[in-house]
């Protein structure tokens, strides 16, 4: 049977790639330290597959076709399309694990979830920045779980948690011997293309971290359902973290680093969950 060997979360600001060479040594060192913590643990686990959760940044989907959730089920996906990403992470094609992806999709439909499916996605910076900075180049096969975190309406917090439990079940019930890690990409606070662009909401980030640390789902649901509509639009990416959290059984959260980085406009968060 497949084994869930690790669960992680990491931020993914595009400016990390676009401006890397222009940062001060201090900024580069801070970001390197953060991503290295995730990367060292993730690489040490030697996953055969990573299920990665991220939003699509208007690459695969548009207003004429905008799924709430999409699973990549094909044998491979396209690497990042952004020129600034191709310079640093030159993987034009990224393998998928179609077997596990299809199993997740089958289980989802059997459990009354209705994800969209894609047989060939393009994995933008949201997927590839954490992989790049974590030293997964090339990466192991990636099962992409795209969650709309960019254009309302979006999944409820409760539904994200349900997806996390479903994901855990899918991994546990997959018959092949496989080491599977989960990587949630996105968050914490940031604001893009809004009057608050550039603002990092440290109070929100700290409260979010405290709630993940406490673990209980209902306080998270209560807080985030009320708070997310009031913070910068990038804060919606914390939905990826909800899925990871529930996949861990809503316990065992460990903050690896929190680093507000004004140079990339993001309150960068890096975390791990126990899989015991």
């Amino acid at each position, binding site marked *: 049977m497949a084994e869930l060997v690790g669960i992680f979360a990491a931020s993914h600001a595009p400016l990390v790639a676009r401006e890397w060479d222009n940062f001060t040594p201090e900024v580069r060192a801070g970001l390197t330290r953060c991503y290295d913590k995730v990367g060292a643990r993730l690489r040490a686990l030697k996953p055969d597959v990573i299920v990665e959760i991220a939003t699509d940044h*208007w690459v695969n989907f548009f*207003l*004429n076709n905008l799924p709430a959730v999409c699973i990549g089920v094909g044998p491979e996906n396209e690497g990042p399309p952004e*020129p600034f990403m191709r310079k640093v992470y030159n993987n034009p094609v990224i393998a998928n694990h179609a077997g596990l992806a299809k199993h997740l999709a089958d289980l989802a439909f059997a459990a009354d979830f209705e994800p969209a499916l894609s047989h060939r996605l393009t994995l933008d910076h949201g997927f590839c920045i954490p992989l790049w900075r974590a030293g997964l180049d090339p990466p192991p096969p990636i099962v992409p779980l795209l969650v709309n975190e960019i254009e309302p309406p979006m999944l409820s917090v409760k539904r994200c948690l349900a997806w996390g439990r479903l994901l855990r079940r899918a991994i546990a019930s997959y018959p092949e011997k496989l080491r599977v890690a989960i990587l949630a990409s996105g968050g914490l606070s940031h604001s*893009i*293309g*809004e009057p608050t*662009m*550039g603002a990092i909401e440290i109070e929100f980030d700290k409260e979010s971290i405290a709630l993940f640390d406490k673990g209980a789902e209902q306080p998270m649901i209560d807080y985030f359902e009320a708070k997310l509509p009031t913070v910068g639009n990038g804060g919606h990416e914390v939905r990826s973290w909800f899925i990871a959290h529930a996949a861990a059984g809503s316990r065992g959260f460990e903050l690896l680093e929190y680093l507000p980085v004004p140079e990339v406009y993001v309150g960068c968060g890096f975390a791990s969950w126990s899989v015991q």
Partner: protein
Amino acid sequence: MATDFWLSKLMYDLQDPKLREEYRADRAGVLSRYKLEPAVVRALETHDINVLAPRVNAYLLRFYYQYSGVKDADFMSGLRALPKDYLNG
């Protein structure tokens, strides 16, 4: 304000470097393929954020200003000057 599909589509499509090149060389020709209101066409000519921002997803707006060569500091200054209720305008 309701989402402007065609303005959003233009901003989405302009992620393609080839279309951006064509847009720079023949803006009117490219714009003629989108069902845009005259006020929106004028706003695109002057990067009038007061007209554009309420009509599109904020990420698409960010892409558009980036591709148009507007510096982040200028873009952010324009955003900060938007009326508080600009989304409902």
